[in-house]
């Protein structure tokens, strides 16, 4: 069941009765799953069409009894009828200036509020960032949101779903650099090639690498078109003779890693691609509580690069 679209099953309740309705639903469900310990409020904000899969992901987490989900789409309505399903409430078409009030009233007390920003007016993001312990950005076209967010880093801990999905790629690349032979060879590396369908993800990865490691003069980052069905298809760092490679396999189920640098015997391994489902990525994100300095640094570098390119 999802409550993102009005046609689907959910209970319409007055705003003041939301908590009561949720408690009743939880009690009704408790025979099947009596163990509940809430960990956070997750507020998903975005256009209605982007709240459908968000609702489904939140429902998955809500069914496990761990989060209260609040779904809000912007509109012109001052008092849209709240719809409750399980531990999730949806407000469709709420006027942007009231969104932070609604969140303030509906969030769980004493537990972190996580805003999952799937698009909307940047001013609304400002208000929500002040209320939230963490903001997870997840806009289709992130340029404007990223620019806005970069000015709010001091107020709240920001991250991005693209960044979250890069975590495994970054971990595998970082693991290469645990090898002394790779660290010794990296000054001779001349290029980073990223095969990606999602240019924003590629830009973030490239910025992360180049801000963390001092490569030699003339080092270049090149993004080439990757397959349509995945954000990143492969990454190669090295020079004409030696490379570190991360390559998604054909079945899109694993990443093959291989290393070839001087002094190293060379090794390949297969690592399963982490679950790409929205609910899984969100679960992983909810485990993070602190500011992510690497993301902030990377994002600032991406924005600076785009600004230079536009000049």
């Amino acid at each position, binding site marked *: 069941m999802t409550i993102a679209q009005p046609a689907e099953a959910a209970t319409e309740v007055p705003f003041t009765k939301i908590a009561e309705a949720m408690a009743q639903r939880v009690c009704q469900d408790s025979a099947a799953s009596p163990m509940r*310990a809430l960990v956070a409020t997750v507020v998903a904000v975005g256009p209605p069409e982007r709240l459908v899969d968000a609702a489904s992901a939140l429902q998955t987490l809500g069914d496990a*009894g761990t989060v209260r989900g609040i779904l809000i789409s912007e509109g012109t309505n001052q008092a849209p009828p709240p719809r409750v399903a399980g531990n999730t409430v949806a407000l469709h078409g709420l006027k942007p200036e009231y969104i932070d009030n609604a969140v303030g009233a509906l969030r769980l007390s004493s537990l972190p509020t996580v805003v999952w920003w799937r698009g909307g007016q940047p001013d609304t993001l400002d208000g929500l960032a002040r209320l939230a312990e963490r903001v997870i950005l997840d806009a289709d076209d992130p340029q404007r949101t990223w620019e806005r967010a970069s000015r709010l880093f001091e107020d709240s801990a920001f991250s991005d779903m693209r960044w979250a999905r890069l975590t*495994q790629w970054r971990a595998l690349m970082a693991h290469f650099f645990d090898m002394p032979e790779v*660290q010794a060879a990296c000054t001779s590396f001349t290029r980073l090639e990223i095969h990606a369908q999602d240019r924003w993800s590629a830009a973030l990865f490239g910025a992360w690498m180049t801000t963390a490691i001092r490569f030699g003069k003339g080092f270049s980052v090149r993004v080439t078109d990757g397959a349509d069905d995945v954000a990143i298809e492969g990454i190669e760092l090295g020079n004409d003779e030696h490379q570190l490679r991360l390559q998604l396999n054909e079945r899109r189920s694993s990443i093959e890693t291989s290393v070839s640098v001087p002094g190293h015997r060379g090794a390949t*391994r297969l*690592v399963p691609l982490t679950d790409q489902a929205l609910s899984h990525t969100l679960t992983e994100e909810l485990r993070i509580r602190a500011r992510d300095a690497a993301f902030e640094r990377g994002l600032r570098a991406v924005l600076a690069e785009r600004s230079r390119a536009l000049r």
Partner: protein
Amino acid sequence: MSGNPLHDGLRLEPTPGPTTLVIFGASGDLTKRKLLPALYHLAHRGRLPAQFAVIGIARTPMDDEGFRTQFHDAINEFASKAPWDEIAQSLASRMYYLAGEFDDAGFYERLSARLKEIDGAEGVLFYLAIPPSVYGTVIEHLGSSGLAAAPDKGWRRIIVEKPFGIDLASARELNQLAHKHFSEEQVYRIDHYLGKETVQNLLVFRFGNGMFEPVWNRRYIDHVQITAAETVGVEHRASYYEGSGALRDMVQNHLMQLLALVAMEPPIAFTAESVRDRKMDALLAVQPLVSTDGDGWARRDIVRAQYGSGWVSGSEVPGYLSEPNVNPASTTETFVAARVYLDNWRWAGVPFYLRTGKRLPKRTTEIAIQFRRPPLEIFRRASQTPVSPDLLIINVQPDEGISLRFEAKLPGTRMQIAPVMMNFRYGTTFGGEVPEAYETLLLDAMLGDTTLFARHDFVEASWALITPVLESWHTRTGPIPTYEAGEWGPEAANELITQDRRRWRTL
């Protein structure tokens, strides 16, 4: 470049450096049921290093392919993840096997040669999944062949399964032998209970919160019950269990570890040595279980028994003496209950009741902290039902989590009181999967973290408590008391606690 700048801000946990795991006892039950599935799960989580290999060692004649087939079968039967897949195939391709006798010096030369051929042998982790009777032989040969000594860029570590010795003298002897060839930092004495999430969380629960530690003492706690109950009988382990019994198999290691974690003082830091120092202090405060001034039973603080036939989990089951490979006149105990006191300021006068057994009604391991009743029972007259004491329950298995039972007013115009339970469960609260204990411990050993492993002095101190009990039992003649399978132990176990005007928790 110092360190690895790419780890900055990376949310994933560290991956070990190049490692080769050498499993002695590779054709055994532990390897099939626990170690191989744990490796597979670690591979699935991406936690194994790129340069990783396994060398299986046993007397059973087998080649590399045979060992890989065994891995395949173990995954299909015991792994919780998806069946045989590309990750399993990739891991299997890095598995090798060596057959040989553990007391053959030439065999260790072959192992040494094999390690040199394998990529990832900078770090070598030896795992003794073999009967304790051959620990000494293997350790001695690892030392004399030079395999225990780490090369310049690398490390050598050894994991030793329980039981670490069969009494104090043998544990000391084994420690001395281990220390002859390995430093203490290289020795990882595994107790899989310590790898369980709830057991680790006990440290966070106690020392990561401000509200529990102030009441964690004799002033507020009436007593503690630690239960490790199994529904299974001796199964196929009779040859081991006959020489062990519940006291050696469960109390000396698992229950003493749990007791130490509950009773320990706060460590000054979350470091291996600091945590293990405080656990050691707690164990040293435990009073002897058997009085040394009389004939062994000046205080009746420990009870043993053996299961008879009965009915468990919906089936009729035979008694211990009728189990395959069990001596019909065996006096091996399958149940132990004990009352333990700690001589320190925090716990003076607070009994810790321990019980463990096979063929009990339910499979569960838990620590229950029962708090004292309020000093004044003001609701006694108003409420007709007696007020229950507050209870904190740490569920170790099978359903890891923490529960708190407290009293609440029943809705209505009358003052009626009833206990309510608040539950926190690991399996659902944070999402994702809870790793198995062996995954956690194998990974910790590869990463060089000894926090969750038993130190030599802890093992010896634990045996020092247990050995007088074993000696006392040894002098007794006649049959051992029995309990019906499917019951919570013998009547004497009830008497042990009811004589203190307390009772075992209903599980």
